[in-house]
């Protein structure tokens, strides 16, 4: 199925484009890619990127080169819940390694892997600006800070419950 925004989402694209002077519509590319990734399964397929290019009237390559540059854009399918564990210096000092190990113990996935049921993807990321609240991870648009094993257990349970409620 070809990707296609709803009318409401197309209005949102128009609102984003209106924030720049005329002729500078390309500036809306990153905000529109965020919207596209959220809408079309958490990642950007070639079809999705081509669709965004059509919307902004730019060449597909202009979308590909941007999508591939920024770490928040996924160019391959990911699980329903993406756990992004920060591992840079300050988080490392506060035990981020053990968080990654514990997620492996619980879910059997290493960084870059997705559970066979397609529910969870584990990623390690670089500094998210939460150094004083380490160790931490990002889940969707939210930060989960001061992580402990208990908190990770609760987080995994709530993700599973959320998926079950949607089915």
């Amino acid at each position, binding site marked *: 199925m070809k990707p296609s925004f709803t009318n409401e989402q197309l209005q949102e694209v128009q609102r984003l484009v209106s*924030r720049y*002077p005329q002729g*500078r519509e*390309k*500036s*809306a*590319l*990153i*905000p529109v*890619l*965020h919207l596209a990734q959220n809408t079309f399964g958490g990642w950007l397929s070639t079809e999705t990127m081509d669709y965004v290019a059509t919307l902004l009237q*730019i060449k597909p390559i*202009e979308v590909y*080169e*941007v999508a591939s*540059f*920024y*770490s*928040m*854009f996924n160019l391959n399918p990911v699980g329903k819940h993406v756990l992004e564990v920060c*591992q*840079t*210096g*300050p988080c*490392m*000092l*506060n035990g981020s390694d053990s968080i990654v190990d514990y997620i492996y113990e619980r879910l059997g996935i290493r960084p870059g892997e997705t559970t066979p049921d397609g529910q969870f993807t584990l990623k390690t*990321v*670089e*500094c*998210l*600006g*939460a*150094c*004083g*609240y*380490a160790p931490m991870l*990002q889940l969707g*648009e*939210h*930060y989960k800070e001061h992580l402990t094993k208990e908190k990770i257990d609760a987080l995994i349970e709530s993700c599973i419950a959320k998926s079950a409620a949607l089915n």
Partner: protein
Amino acid sequence: MGRKLLLEKAHIENIRSYEVYRKEGGYRSVEKALKTLTPDQVTDEVKKSGLRGRGGAGFPTGMKWSFLTKPEGVPRYLVVNADESEPGTFKDRYLMEFIPHLLIEGMVTSSYALGSNRSYIYIRGEYAWIAHILEQAIEEAHQHGWLGKNILGSGFDCNIYVQRGAGAYICGEETALLESLEGKRGNPRIKPPFPAVKGLWGCPTAVNNVETIAALVPIINEGGEEYAKIGMGKSTGTKLISACGNINKPGVYEIDMTISVEEFIYSDEYCGGIPQGKKLKACIPGGSSVPILPANLLLKTAKGEARMMNYESLADGGFATGSMMGSGGFIVMDDTQCVVKHTYTLARFYRHESCGQCSPCREGTGWMEKILWNLETGKGRSGDIDLLWDIQRKIEGNTICPLGDAAAWPVAAAIRHFRDEFEWHVTHPEEAQKRNYGLAHYADPLSVSVA
């Protein structure tokens, strides 16, 4: 107890809302500026205040603004840099999250001074919820006439927009930020031309850090001269410090730059000391890019004077025995931490964040990461430390943007001050897997090789 100018009211209930913020005296600086000062007079107040850029470079803000060219008929832009990504730094996030109107208020006045009718906040993509908070604050400011057309009858129009990035440390570099705002890859531009001449969409642009722009509020309210009386020497006003690592009370603190590093780490008003009775080993006082200092050089300068929490004192001794204020990201390490491993995580960070334009940075950062990984995992060889030193030296100063320097400095400083710990990893590879080196380097407290 030092003076607070930015976060004094951050803990008032509902200060995030316009009503409470206004009741607490919010937007007074906009009234004062737009009704009683010309744009140039606002810039003059900033010059008098001695305010220095709070993003990391510490360049005088008033001077930066005076470089902005004003050709007839060409729009000018203010872009606020909220791409806070320097490891150890989380101060702008705190300010925007808890007292967002302070940034909006500072932006209206700054936009007036610079003649920007369309100003942007470029915020790192991961701070998604803060982007929503800012958009809410902007909407409220619009409703109450602080944004939009003919603000306070002054004839000045201004709109503010929030732009989310998508995960790229390099977009904190001002020209990469502008490229990103234009919908491109975050590849830094060659300077000159500087953004003040050719910035966003080729127009004159001022790019300033969140905290810098927020400081406009007290500067205009109290006057530049009054602001300059706070602090010490050329470190005027207050500075937000985000403290993290091995301390009892991590968090964001506003200091007036007259306190000592020792007080900052050990007093209960700030970091509250090191947990579990452990000892201070080292500290990176200004975000991951600035030189790491061992405890002895951190607390006292090479001359034996108490080191203070301000621009001049933190830089005392240059890179040989000093460091930098940087972004205010204060990372503390206790005696159970391994400098080699910590340096490895930073090298990995810079390799991940290098945009890839310049060969010394693109190739050098990955090479340093590999060597540091080998050292950390017991596969180091005797020439590795000299090789690391050589690589970092060949990156520094040889790239378009300062990311190359930022990647080189942490490695250089770690070797400069902790060479014995690196050598121990080479000579004792198996032991290094089982325990950390601890504080052994204090056998010779001032073993500092001056480069």
